[in-house]
């Protein structure tokens, strides 16, 4: 009882965390800009955003699984797998580009349903269930496609889709300049998913299940259905990420890649204030969390800290973020 009282200011703390995260984004961007002339270049921003898009999509999906008290480890390898199968349909089966994109999203949905079935109907622990589908998606792309796949190049008539995230326009001097229009779908996704999370039954029940599954069940919430919907959302966004991924990738898509991305995505969500134990989280927070990780990934090399340092610093940031989550939970327990 005493403990319940102690947690009286936790909701305010949560807001504080978001302000801190926003401040970190600004500070990081400022520091990198000051110390690296290279970082200030427009082309750097465009490159940074390329990886940010797909990263952000999978993290938005994973956020819903985390809030429901679960997890989804299949999103990283899944994203690559769905993109491979979609690309295979275009290049090998001759489907139009839009159909290939739909296939990519459909694959995501299928695996979302599978994950949801394993977790909510078969009651497998989410961590293990999605670890298994992570392995499955890792191998499946190669089995279906038989090797690397190239989505149509920008120059080809079927390459129009690349403009969805990076639009090439002629500037005044007659040179082609990229405009990072991918920001628009990302912002749309954040707004819509925030609305779904906070203002619709799906979101409300996902939070309720993550907060106290038994209480939600006793209140008449269809726990199986809504727990499953969190995984379907995650799968759908892994599919969207697949499309953003091929738009950002000019070389061929390699089967079996994408492992590790899911951990970064989960890390980003947690930095953004989503709780590992469920019931708490925000889509906007995830956006900021991913922004921090993307800034670190792109900025550190520019100030002379290579891949190794990048991993070390990302790890330290994550420890810090998870520790804040643990502290918040300790007060509630």
């Amino acid at each position: 009882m005493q403990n319940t009282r102690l947690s009286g200011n936790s909701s305010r703390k949560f807001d504080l965390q978001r302000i801190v995260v926003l401040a970190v984004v600004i500070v990081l961007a400022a520091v990198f800009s000051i110390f690296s002339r290279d970082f200030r270049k427009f082309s750097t921003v465009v490159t940074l955003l390329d990886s940010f898009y797909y990263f952000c999509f999978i993290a938005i999906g994973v956020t819903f699984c985390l809030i429901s008290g679960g997890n989804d480890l299949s999103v990283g390898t899944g994203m690559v797998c769905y993109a491979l199968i979609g690309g295979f349909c275009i290049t090998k089966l001759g489907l139009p580009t839009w159909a290939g994109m739909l296939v990519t999203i459909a694959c995501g949905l299928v695996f979302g349903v599978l994950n949801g079935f394993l977790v909510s109907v078969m009651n497998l622990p989410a961590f293990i269930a999605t670890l298994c589908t992570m392995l499955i998606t890792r191998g499946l792309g190669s089995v279906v496609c038989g090797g690397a796949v190239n989505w149509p190049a920008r120059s080809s008539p079927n390459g129009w889709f690349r403009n969805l995230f990076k639009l090439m326009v002629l500037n005044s001097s007659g040179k082609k300049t990229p405009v990072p229009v991918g920001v628009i779908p990302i912002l749309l996704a954040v707004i819509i998913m925030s609305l779904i999370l906070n203002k619709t039954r799906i979101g409300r029940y996902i939070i309720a299940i993550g907060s106290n599954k038994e209480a939600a069940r006793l209140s008449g919430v269809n726990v199986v259905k809504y727990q499953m919907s969190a995984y379907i959302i995650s799968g759908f966004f892994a599919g969207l990420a697949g499309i953003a991924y091929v738009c950002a990738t000019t070389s061929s898509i390699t089967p079996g890649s994408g492992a590790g991305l899911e951990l970064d995505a989960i890390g980003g969500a947690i930095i953004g204030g989503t709780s590992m134990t469920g019931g708490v989280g925000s889509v906007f927070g995830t956006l900021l969390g991913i922004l921090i990780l993307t800034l670190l990934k792109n900025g550190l090399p520019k100030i002379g800290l290579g891949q190794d340092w990048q991993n070390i610093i990302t790890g330290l940031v994550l420890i810090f973020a998870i520790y804040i989550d643990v502290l918040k939970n300790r007060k509630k327990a």
Partner: protein
Amino acid sequence: MGEVILTMKGIDKSFPGVHALDHVDLEVCRGEVHALMGENGAGKSTLMKVLTGIYSKDSGTITYEGREVEFQNPREAQEAGIVIVHQELNMMNHLTVAQNIFIGREYMKGFLIDDARMNLEAKKLFDQLGIDINPAEKMGNLTVGKQQMCEIAKAISHEAKVIIFDEPSAALTEAEIEELFKIIRDLRAKQMGIVYISHRMDEIKVITDRVTVMRDGSYVGTLITKDCTKDDIVNMMVGRVIYEEPKTHSMVAPDAPVVLKVDHLNAGKLVQDVSFELRKGEILGFSGLMGAGRTETARAIFGADPKESGDIYVNGEKVEINSPQDAVKHGIGYLSEDRKRYGIVVGKTIAENSTLASLEDFVKGRLIDRKKERDATQKYVDRLRTKTPGIDQLVINLSGGNQQKVVIAKWLVRNCDILIFDEPTRGIDVGAKSEIYHLMSELAAEGKSIIMISSEMPEVLRMSDRIIVMCEGRKTAEIDIADATQEKIMHAATLR
């Protein structure tokens, strides 16, 4: 009191091996607060679970608003207007108060949830109850008392006609209880039927109109509260039957040294200023109702939970116990009430479990000395008469009584002289029970000192040399076995 709204008649319910309810009757009127009382395990909760469709009855009838009913699940009961306010609150801490109250039946505006409307409706409910809670506050930020008010508001929003309170005051402060009573009186004035389950005698006198007492799954009787005394109710609760021959006098030598002294121990709400002494060769019984703080006291002594203040002396020397390792070092062993969770590793063998607490004595270099481990285990299997085909048997295959013996062996191997038995015979059949009793008596005769926490009155009276009674985190009585009676103990256990 108005007309009868609910009648349960001849309700019978058996679980494998237990006759949980034996033809129990209960009648609730409109505008009545009806207390349901009985010791732990008397069947109160089971009866309410039968009423609300969590369990199905074997026989008997339930008549509600003039019709015979049988609810299949709590939701059906709820829709008919029978609601339970549970002891453990079913709340989602991360949602707001209004979101909790209206979960599953949200007000919508198109596709979107109309939170503003829900806050408004919740506010109306609270106004109706005369309580001041902000509907937009996160549930987790409220005190337990306020959370309970929200549960009540939720119940009323379901148009409840019968509300069951399952030990509502257990976690509340005095002020919160006052507020709760005010609400209950309001509900009574609105002609609702209220079932009030509680152990607190004083509350029963203050708030209830009638009392139904249950004992061992049977119906004992119904009294009009204002016409009876506390003693009447206590006598009905404990009955006159003595199941086991109680100990008549203490077996402890008058000059036996004090091996454990606990001085003004404080640890949270359930351990407040507890002091006592334990003598060599003594069995000290800890009696009290559920939530009295007995297990919490034991866990604080054992270092499993943090202490706020207070000193512990072992063999006259002051000791610092901040963790179970410290306790074990000073020769204190704790046998948890929840054996499967804290006592044994069920998937391991008897030998592996027996040496678990003292593995450092069984290593040769870096490896475990199998022979030494087997010898020691065999010694205690023989001594405790553990029934097993062999010491390599997995503990999961043993009966409850024999599992308990393995836990005892674990602490004996560790040379613990002070043993805390928390509900030592819970979930153990009658034959094995008396074996455990003999074993405890033997251990005490050999000079081990035992603290025995037990919710079973006959067990306390049969085993203890001295009895400490706790109520709501405080020691309320210390009784020598020669003077102990069920009535005295129950009186001290229900002091509030």
